[in-house]
């Protein structure tokens, strides 16, 4: 039986790990390679590195972090942040990323998904999506770190990214992100019912039981969290033990 995945996300700025709460107010917390190695020891099923500055100047430093991590950590690594071209994808994969996560650039240029899938294979194309409830009762897709609304409906968008060859969707709810009241079950259910590719839940984990809940109430195959693990409030083994006790398959 396929295990559900627990994925810590490390936000990286200038070669250091940070975590922004609601994408603002950043705290510096340490060496990303060490953090990734620690998560690996704890039994994390994958690790995500997110380049939050994503500037041209800082790219080299960020890719060095990926390169060093790939030499020491032998679980899948996903790299995101500022990936806007096929060249950016190639660079990240060559540095040792197993998957690349594209967000704003995919919304602005959906052809990028098709090209990436064609050249590198669907298995390494993750589409990151930031979405928020709108007044009409639907969900709107946002770009640029969740700051800019696009005239794109979430449920149309997920169908398109699947058709274009994305291998996976990482769905972050702006409504629940940073609030710590649990994952956005309603939004995740809506997306899971529209696509057949794996969906990763992101945004909102605040307590131990939130993970088991999202696996029990939706068909997401993975759950991602950053600050919760990062500041040691919860550990990956604690989360896995709780899920296992509730009958959810874990590695």
């Amino acid at each position, binding site marked *: 039986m*396929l*295990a559900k995945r627990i994925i810590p996300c490390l936000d990286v700025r200038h070669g250091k790990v940070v975590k922004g709460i609601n994408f603002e107010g950043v705290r510096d917390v340490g060496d990303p390679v060490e953090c990734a190695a620690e998560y690996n020891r704890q039994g994390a099923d994958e690790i995500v590195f997110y380049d939050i500055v994503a500037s041209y100047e800082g790219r080299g430093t960020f890719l060095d972090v990926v390169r060093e991590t790939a030499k020491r950590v032998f679980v*899948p690594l996903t790299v995101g942040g500022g990936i806007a071209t096929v060249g950016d994808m190639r660079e990240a994969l060559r540095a040792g990323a197993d998957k690349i996560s594209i967000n704003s650039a995919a919304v602005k240029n959906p052809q990028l998904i098709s090209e990436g899938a064609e050249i590198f294979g669907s298995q390494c194309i993750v589409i990151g999506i930031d979405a928020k409830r709108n007044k009409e009762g639907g969900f709107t897709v946002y770009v640029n770190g969740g700051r800019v609304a696009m005239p794109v409906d979430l449920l149309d968008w997920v169908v398109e990214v699947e058709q274009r060859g994305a291998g996976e969707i990482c769905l972050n709810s702006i409504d629940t992100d940073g609030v710590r009241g649990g994952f956005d079950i309603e939004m995740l259910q809506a997306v899971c019912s529209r696509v057949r590719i794996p969906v990763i839940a992101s945004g909102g984990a605040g307590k131990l039981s939130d993970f088991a809940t999202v696996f029990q109430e939706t068909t997401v195959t993975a759950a991602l969290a950053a600050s919760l693990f990062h500041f040691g409030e919860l550990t990956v083994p604690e989360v896995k033990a709780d899920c296992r006790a509730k009958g959810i398959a874990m590695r």
Partner: protein
Amino acid sequence: MIAVIDYGAGNLFSVCNALSYLNIAHTVTSDAKEVDRADAVILPGVGAFPPAMQALGEVGLTGTVRENAKKKPLLGICLGMQMLFDRSDEMGDCAGLGLIPGEVRRIPSDRVIIPHMGWNELVITQDCPLLQGIESPVFTYFVHSYQAFCEDENIVAFADYDGKVPALVTDGQYVFGAQFHPEKSGEQGLMMLRNFERMTI
């Protein structure tokens, strides 16, 4: 010395990172003579079947891999495992290396999420030198939409994904194939690569 076949496969560097971490001597090569000299061969692979078979042909190693598989350990990983079989119907019919009888088709269940992506438990059905010293439960990392269909005698371990997905296969002699990624399967995956190196001694 293990020869890691270089024909442009995407997971080549991950495989090499894992071998380096384990201090296993290896060389990345598309030179037939170097493959002939090696003690064992790893055939990596991600992506689609026909372009990969074509790329292997273009570097002139299709025959070399087939010949070497008769006399030294060969490990195919992910798409490299699928290439060991007779054929695949991914993007139309395409011949494989024909080292293990069987064929590759899309995962048949319409009830599961495709691709089969994540950590799945191995159901071990036969002894295998690659699994030596590895304690159950064994979880490995999979990511694929096509799977092998072959005889039980060639299956060492399978994963349950609303049906039997051959995970570790062999010809019973020198040829081994892993549908999962040992280089991305944590400590247990690294132990399999270590065991593979031991087979060359």
